């Protein structure tokens, strides 16, 4: 009798635990289906990230900025993402105004009416921060990016180390979104840096090649034509990760390694691998985390005080085959630190 009671108790206990477990599982799954706003974390502000460029660098910038927003109590939304149509930066800013966003972070794409749109947003009391490309006359409250002077210096320094004796053909890839003034500033500063540092016997002929990142697949076509053309440059300066990856791919496919020196931009897995294989001598990169932090800080500061510094400088650094592993380890450490935080 006692054995029977023990056995019955054990069986009933297990069955009861099983039923309770199943019940909890069903309830938890049913709860997941609920879209009650009270079940989610609330945010004080709603910022919009505007960029028609969806390259790896911009995605990294968005993620880092979103992390900074999270810490600041703001929700960051990439405007126009997952929409059936593609919107220009100007349209996204108009959308943001209609949504009554609290702030806008925009990566200017050179679209028409962008400055006016930023001006309209500013008129509605919505601060706009531009990143990497400045539109000083647009009514943006702040710019977060690399100074063109600094960039020209750094590129000039890299060019000096790569130039061979004699005449060096250098091509600077620009984007349709880049403003003419900024390109001119960069160009001038590079030339100045080379003039200041170039030893005798080394000359440089610098030219620019525009690549329209707003048009799909345009970069690869333009770079291939450039590298396989009669005026193939000795040194190619890229200003985006897409340009850099296209150049690396073309060098591999058309056996141009050693014939063209590529100064890359940003660090992706493919670029890092190319560095390790010494396909390219250097790639320039920015600290996306610092950029995101500065963007959020600029918006928060403006909303709180009504004024903000018009320029947040982001440093530009170079990654060489020698420093590739260290850079990767540092990035991994930073990522794990952010995840833990």
């Amino acid at each position: 009798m006692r054995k029977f009671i023990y056995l019955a108790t054990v069986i009933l206990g297990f069955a009861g635990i099983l039923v309770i477990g199943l019940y909890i599982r069903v309830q938890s799954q049913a709860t997941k289906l609920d879209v009650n706003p009270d079940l989610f974390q609330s945010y004080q502000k709603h910022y919009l990230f505007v960029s028609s460029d969806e390259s790896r660098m911009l995605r990294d910038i968005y993620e880092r900025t979103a992390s900074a927003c999270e810490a600041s109590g703001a929700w960051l939304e990439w405007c126009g993402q997952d929409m059936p149509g593609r919107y220009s930066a100007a349209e996204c800013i108009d959308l943001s105004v209609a949504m009554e966003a609290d702030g806008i972070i925009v990566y200017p794409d050179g679209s028409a009416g962008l400055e006016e749109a930023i001006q309209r947003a500013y008129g509605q009391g919505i601060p706009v921060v531009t990143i990497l490309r400045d539109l000083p006359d647009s009514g943006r409250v702040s710019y977060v990016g690399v100074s063109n002077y600094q960039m020209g210096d750094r590129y000039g320094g890299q060019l000096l180390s790569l130039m061979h004796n004699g005449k060096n053909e250098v091509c600077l890839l620009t984007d349709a979104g880049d403003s003419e003034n900024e390109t001119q500033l960069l160009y001038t500063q590079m030339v100045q840096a080379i003039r200041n540092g170039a030893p005798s016997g080394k000359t440089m002929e610098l030219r620019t090649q525009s690549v329209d990142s707003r048009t799909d697949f345009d970069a690869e076509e333009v770079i291939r034509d450039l590298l396989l053309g009669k005026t193939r440059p000795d040194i190619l300066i890229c200003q985006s990760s897409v340009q850099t990856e296209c150049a690396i791919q073309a060098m591999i496919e058309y056996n141009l390694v050693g014939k063209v020196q590529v100064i890359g931009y940003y660090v992706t897995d493919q670029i890092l691998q190319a560095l390790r294989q010494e396909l390219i001598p250097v790639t320039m990169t920015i600290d996306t985390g610092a950029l995101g932090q500065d963007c959020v800080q600029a918006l928060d500061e403006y909303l709180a005080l009504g004024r903000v510094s018009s320029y947040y400088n982001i440093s530009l650094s170079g990654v060489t085959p020698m420093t590739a592993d260290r850079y990767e380890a540092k990035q991994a450490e930073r990522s794990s630190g952010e995840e833990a935080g």
Partner: protein
Amino acid sequence: MKRTQFRFFSSVQTRISAVVATVLLLVLCANIFAFRQSSETVQQINEVFASNAVIMNLGDTLAAAQASMYDYLSTKGTAPLEDFYRYEQALREQTEELNGRNVGNDLLMLEKNIRFMTHSYLRVAEDAIQARRGRNVEEYKADYARASTLFEYINNYIYTLNSRRFSQNTENYLTLLRNMRVVERMSLMMIIVVCAFALALCIMSVRAMIGPLGALSAAAENVAGGDFSVDVPESQRQDEVGVVTNAFHKMLASIRAYIESQRASLEKEAQMKENELSMEAHLKEAQLKFLQAQINPHFLFNSLNAGSQLAMMEGAERTEHFLSRMAQFFRYNVKKTGGDAALSEEIESVDNYIYILNVRFSGDIHYEKQISQDIDLEQVRMPSMILQPIVENAIQHGIHDDHENGVVTLAVDDVPENENETGTDCVRITVADNGAGMSRAMIASIMSRRPGDGSAPQDREGGDSTGIAMENVIARLELYYGRKNLFSIWSDGPGTGTEVTVLLPKEKEHVSDSDSGR
């Protein structure tokens, strides 16, 4: 009739009812739980695409508002304007159902964007209508263009939200279907578990309640088979089973006690029957001896009469006298056995006995009589065969060893009531001898004997004795007169002689039928 009162919660009826109620309640709860879970899941499945309907409805209303605004701007008609305001109101109400807060969920933020963009759209549309009213052509065209752009944005967002909602709802639908299956299994398992638990509860409860009845029935079966040694321990339970068990326990104890008493009674009865049979056997033996004793005296008496007549015919007077006295003596014995007699007849019997002994012992027995002249011996009635045994004892035990000097004296006199222990006037008969005497122990032994107790000396029945013992004499005297203290023995000790006194009350209180019947 005493009615047993049970505690409410200890009654078997209550306990069975409680167990059944518990089982039913458990099964009911399990079914309610299963039904509720299924119902909730079905309801969730039914509502899973409701959000899509809301979004689609919002898109339709927005399109209707846009169309009515366009109609108004085109025609400036009242009906389109009324339609616009109606749709505007509907849009405001419908957007109220959308999320308006900044929360960490993409879909909810899409809702918020649609809500705010719709409000922006309505503001621009209202501006366009007001500009149309004010005939400001450029402004209302510009506002209409902005409104149309916003309309397109909102539609795209609604499309996106609807698509993502549909995707999510489809996923939710599949999840709910899986949940439904889990709920079905869970419900089935719960019902099985609850039923198993209920069954176990029933079995244990019934066993706990009915179990003692099994032991009781086994004990009852043994009892029915005649085995009363079976032990049924007392129960501590307060219910009917406990009462029945305890009652059975008590009943068994009572039956055992009754059987024991019956057995003792039967044993006693058997003993009594055995005694009775023994008495009957002794009685029959006594009657046989008595008949033999009767036969012999009659035969002897008749023979003695014949001898006496023969002696008379032959002229032997002394022989004829001897035989005649012998015949008288035995005739008295035969005649008076079992009845009473006059004192004179008793004395005559003693005389005959002394005569016979003197003939036998050549006149060695010295016998004296001292009879008061005031007593009419014929009128004094007494049990027969009283004096002769006393005299015989005096001769046999008193002077037996010294006949020459021994004297037996028979004295009869009156004793007034104040001089004796009977409390009435008595005739006192004293038989005294000067022979061996008796010790106090012997006197006490004789006085304490009663007929049938087996303590009488055996030699009394042999030899020359008539076979009647002193205890017989004492018993018959007491039975005849219904009094005690009528017989006494006195002696100063061995060698000092013995005196036996018999008191015959003159007012006889009771005459024993048994004596007279012998």
